[in-house]
């Protein structure tokens, strides 16, 4: 489908360019937490880019920093987030509000808590149409019904009056997707959009997202902890570890020959379709939290089966190797994928 085409189109000027993004949280009575530590990546128009990594590696913080939706206080964001060449981080609050929901929008992980419980779905869709497309009440309602219909919500006219708690989890996420795409943004960020849903619904929602971005030509940043989710979807995949990108590659190449030991580990822990629900995966030993700070070597070294002495002494620099970005002193040999 559009995946390969998107990669081809990616040659032109990027739609979004994240440069050296750095987010630190001030912590009471302790050193600051570095959540995102110099992340660079670009998204071409219409491209589907994956951002993959374990929980806590900085995926959500990265996406919220791009949207400028981090809490107002207690954090510092540095670097650049350029959209159409304009640095979003330098915009005034009002200018950023103009763009949010219109040029770039976002779908969150938990559809129930992400919808206002005391406002009808219809209002939650129309308010964004009225805000950015200047629509009047009635046309906005008609458009909202069409949007709900487009995302596969049955009986959309009646659903406009429903409240979030009256919808199923899958329907709620469909409604949030309708809201996010209502103003035809050129960039959609989906932060683990299927994690809170039943397994049977997950594939439907992923399929819907892929279909809609192909149809509207929007670029998509797909954030997930599950390489299985990006497998059928992304053009390019960024693998994040401890707030840094450790490997980036075109999707087919990444799956065929993962070079970073972390990527390699993630791939061998993908659940197979025939595995029983709840069955333990082959987890990478250790967790993302007991990492070394990047300043003193590779953060993955303590958990890495291929760690050498150098890994704990020198921080590996990002290198372009055979069309992929790699941050590793001792990568998995290309042939051993």
């Amino acid at each position, binding site marked *: 489908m559009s995946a390969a085409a998107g990669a081809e189109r990616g040659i032109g000027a990027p739609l979004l360019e994240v440069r050296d993004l750095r987010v630190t949280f001030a912590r009471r009575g302790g050193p600051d937490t570095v959540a995102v530590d110099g992340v660079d990546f670009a998204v071409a128009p219409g491209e589907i880019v994956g951002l993959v990594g374990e929980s806590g590696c900085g995926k959500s913080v990265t996406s919220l920093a791009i949207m400028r939706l981090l809490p107002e206080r207690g954090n510092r964001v540095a670097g650049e987030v350029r959209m159409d060449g304009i640095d979003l981080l330098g915009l005034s609050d009002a200018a950023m509000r103009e763009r*949010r929901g219109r040029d770039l929008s976002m779908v969150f992980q938990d559809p129930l*808590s992400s919808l*206002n419980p005391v406002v009808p779905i219809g209002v939650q869709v129309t308010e964004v149409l009225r805000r950015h497309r200047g629509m009047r009440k009635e046309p906005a309602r008609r458009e909202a019904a069409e949007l709900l219909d487009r995302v596969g919500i049955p009986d959309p006219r009646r659903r406009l009056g429903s409240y979030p708690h009256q919808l199923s989890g899958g329907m709620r996420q469909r409604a949030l997707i309708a809201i996010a795409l209502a103003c035809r943004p050129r960039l959609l960020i989906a932060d683990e959009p299927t994690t809170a849903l039943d397994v049977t619904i997950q594939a439907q929602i992923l399929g819907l997202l892929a279909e809609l971005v192909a149809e509207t030509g929007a670029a998509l940043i797909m954030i997930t902890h599950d390489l299985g989710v990006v497998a059928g979807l992304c053009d390019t995949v960024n693998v994040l570890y401890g707030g840094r990108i450790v490997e980036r590659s075109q999707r087919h190449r990444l799956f065929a020959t993962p070079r970073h030991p972390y990527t390699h580990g993630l791939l061998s822990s993908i659940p197979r379709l025939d595995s029983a629900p709840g069955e333990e995966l082959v987890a990478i030993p250790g967790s993302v939290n007991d990492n070394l700070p990047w300043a003193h070597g590779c953060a993955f070294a303590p958990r890495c089966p291929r760690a050498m002495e150098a890994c704990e002494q020198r921080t590996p620099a990002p290198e372009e190797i055979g069309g992929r970005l790699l941050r590793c002193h001792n990568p998995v040999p290309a042939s051993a994928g």
Partner: protein
Amino acid sequence: MLRFVVRRLLQVVPTLLLLSVLVFAWLRSLPGGPASAFLGDRATPERVAELNRVLGLDQPVWVQYLRFLGRAFTGDLGNSQITGEPVLSEIGRALPATVELSVAALLIAVTLGIPLGYLSARHRGRPLDVATVIGTLVGVAVPVFFLGYLLKAVFAVELGLFPPSGRQSVGIDATNVTGFAVLDGLLTRELDASWDALTHLVLPAVALATIPLAVIVRITRASVLDVLGSDFVRTANAKGLAPSTVRGRHVLRNALLPVSTTIGLQTGLLLAGAVLTEKVFVWGGIGTLLAQGIEQRDYPRLQALLLLGALVYVLVNLLVDLSYAIIDPRVRLS
């Protein structure tokens, strides 16, 4: 909705019945009785027995109760032992003063409390918030009558800005329509009388408003903080909505849910505070009736007042439940 209201109102009847038994027994278990209170310390046992017989207090308690109940069903709660007047007409006359005071206090508490709580949350940790939080701690801790005397000493006696007590100045000849002094003045276009009543209302209303104000500020603040950190507010911001839309439709509409419950609870408690406030400001409402009734052990009056209090409390709670069901679609009345 209607079925819910009717059912809840029907539930009020057994509640009040049970309460009447408790009140009846409790009052008669208190040391001292109307006779000794009325006759004083030097009363001879014979005089006490005589008076008790006249008041019907020589009968077994259950006989007294059945008599009371029988009359209560015909709308007669007995006569005051102090004035000999039917207690219901006494209460009817005193009620507007207390309602006026309570409504004024509640208006102050709500109209100041919600914005203050919201601002405090928005400016969390900044001087305004710190000052507000300290202020609410003090507000809850200061006894109503102490605050009342303080306000009176400063703003009435020292500065002379407000009258120190009463509901009306001497010499003001106001027409009584509803019993609500401020409202009556407006209705009869006697604006002077209305203004006079309003100046009398300010200090007691402020004193009475303090505790509910402090509570409403704190609940609003906590609730707004909670909602500001919620996912759906983040979604609202992700849509790029105008700040006023985010504030009204998304933050406040949710944050006010717990506040509405609090307002209901505070309304119930307001009656207790009104008794103390009325004493300080010689207000002449229900509180005065109650204080007198307790001193004189006026059983019929106390019974009626306690049952009235319970009834108000139950009705206010019903109103809270109804309003909750209207603003929160997740709540089903059943």
